[in-house]
């Protein structure tokens, strides 16, 4: 069974990679890229004399949410096996998981109160 799984997944992967690449190659059908053209200039509302590049540092607020995601999503991954076996694990598992979730919620409350979820 597992050999079949690997096989089927690799077939899918090859196809799923191959089709987009083929799609991209289709642009050879049309007019070819002209490099000396002003259409290659990055768009900023028609202004060509821009201040600051795109490799500058960027406000940290966006990244904070990403870090939060890592925390919470890893914890969700821990919860999946428990969720599948929740009946077998019974009260013990339930209380264990409740304690875990309580910690999670505490974390969320802490984040909330420390203002990390404020975007302004």
């Amino acid at each position, binding site marked *: 069974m597992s050999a079949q799984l690997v096989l089927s997944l690799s077939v899918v992967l090859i196809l799923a990679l191959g089709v987009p690449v083929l799609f991209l190659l289709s642009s050879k059908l049309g007019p070819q890229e002209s490099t000396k053209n002003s259409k290659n200039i990055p768009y900023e*509302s*028609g*202004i060509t*004399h821009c201040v*600051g590049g795109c490799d500058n540092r*960027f*406000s940290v607020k966006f990244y904070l949410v990403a870090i939060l995601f890592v925390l919470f999503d890893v914890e969700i991954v821990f919860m999946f096996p428990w969720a599948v076996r929740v009946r077998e694990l019974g009260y013990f598992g339930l209380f264990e998981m409740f304690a875990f979730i309580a910690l999670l919620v505490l974390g969320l409350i802490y984040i909330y109160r420390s203002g990390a979820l404020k*975007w302004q």
Partner: protein
Amino acid sequence: MTVKNFKTLFENRYFIEDSGAFIVEKSNILDALHVIKNRDNYTLLLDMTAVDYLKKDSSKARFAVIYILRHSDFSQILMLKVYLDATLTLPSVTSLFKSANWAEREIWDQYGIQFQNHPNLKRILNHKEFIGHPLCKDYPITQGQLCTKTDDLMDEMTPLLKSKGYENFEDLMFLNLGPAHPASHGTIRNFVALEGETIVSTVSEIGYLHRGFEKSCENHTYNQIIPYTDRLNYCSAILNNIAFAHTVEGMLGVEIPQRAQYIRVIIGELSRAIDHLVCLAAMLVDMGALTNYWYLYNPRESVYTLLSKLTGARLTNSYMRIGGVSRDFYEGFEEDLRYSLKDIQKGVGDTLKLIAHNRIFHDRTQNVGIIKKDEALNRGITGPNLRACGIAYDLRVAKPYYGYDTFDFNIPIGSTGDVYDRMMVRFEEIEQSIYIIKQAMKRIPKGDIMLNNHSIALPSKQSVYTSIEGVMNQFKLIYEGVKVPSKEYYDAIEGANGELGFFIVSDGSGTPYKVKVRPPCFYAMSALPSMIEGGMIADAVLSLGSLNIIAGELDR
């Protein structure tokens, strides 16, 4: 305030010119404006402009600067005039009126008059590489100038950020919202400094659509200017026609026939309604509420069909003439109008059904882009944007013209001056306009649509083709223009966006010596940075949309 009072207030140092403007010495202008504003309650600086008397009568001085103020009861107007000496400098009044900021920049740009202590005296309508001052009478209009380099605007942004406590700008992202941006509605550039997505400070650059309207006017007869006025606020071209014709008729001292007045009311209110429709539709698209765009734009289409039947053009109608209107209603106009009005009401009703109780809509618009009452007045904002702040100033009521005092209608006002209020005021104004139109259609009298005065009104085509008097009359009026007595005159009507005024200087010939339009957008736009700073990009887009900035009028 009477003239006598005014003289006593200022210890007889001021006198009135024929035009009705009070002459103030250059050294006293700040004091005079201070007293006028704080004691006499002339709280709204409507407009500032300059006149170059080089080719008229430069015996007193070549340049004069004119301040037009409105009393806080909104019916009285006061004009102050300062003759300039050879140094061409004047103290800036930005400390008293924030609306003077851009107005003074414009005067510097167009006439080369310098304002001392102005926070940021640089060109505003013309390009920064432009040489000379185009509205000076000795500027050669055939001289072309090629300006190519874009201003990076850091000369304005850097002090602004420093004043907000930013020492190095490493963590800020500088972004141009416009001129070619999907939400800039025309070509307006807002240069913003972002922290994350929060706007820290904004610098606006306008003038991308500057085409020298005022200079063109100085070379055309009064009737020839009417098509130019179409291009000011092209969403309600007819209201611009009316404002200009109304001002010139005021200078001539004539009143147009009753029927023409009613036609102006009906078509003007229809224009106001479609102007608001455009503003609301575009704004809702900026919010992602795409469906409302068609709900609001389809009725506009039916109004355009009606207007093209009536005037021959859809967008730039040129429907008014000095002394009346160009055509009478056609047969079946009333049915078409009724159909269009019903269409508008249906569109507005459907849109309100979709958004009025929508939580997302409320969250997006309420408490966003707020401007306070006093701030709005100080910045010279008028029209729906001012009424949204809670000030019930509407020229149709404050200083009725064309018998607006005989119509029954309400002025909707808001309370907080946020985006939501501005939108809802416009929705309600559409309803009120429709109500006025219905009343006017019931009462419209029969009669002439043009003045019966051969020195003003163009003769009918019938008489031009069949009689020599008609031909001669037409010839004289077309070639020489309507002769307007020598005057300096300001008058305004309630445009779709606010007080739409014209300041005209005439020299007795058929072409105006100077025309200055007071575009309501210009002052609303100058207030935009104060509304969007501290908000997010998404809020800035909505705030800009809710002010209904029309680039044609803004940049002239």
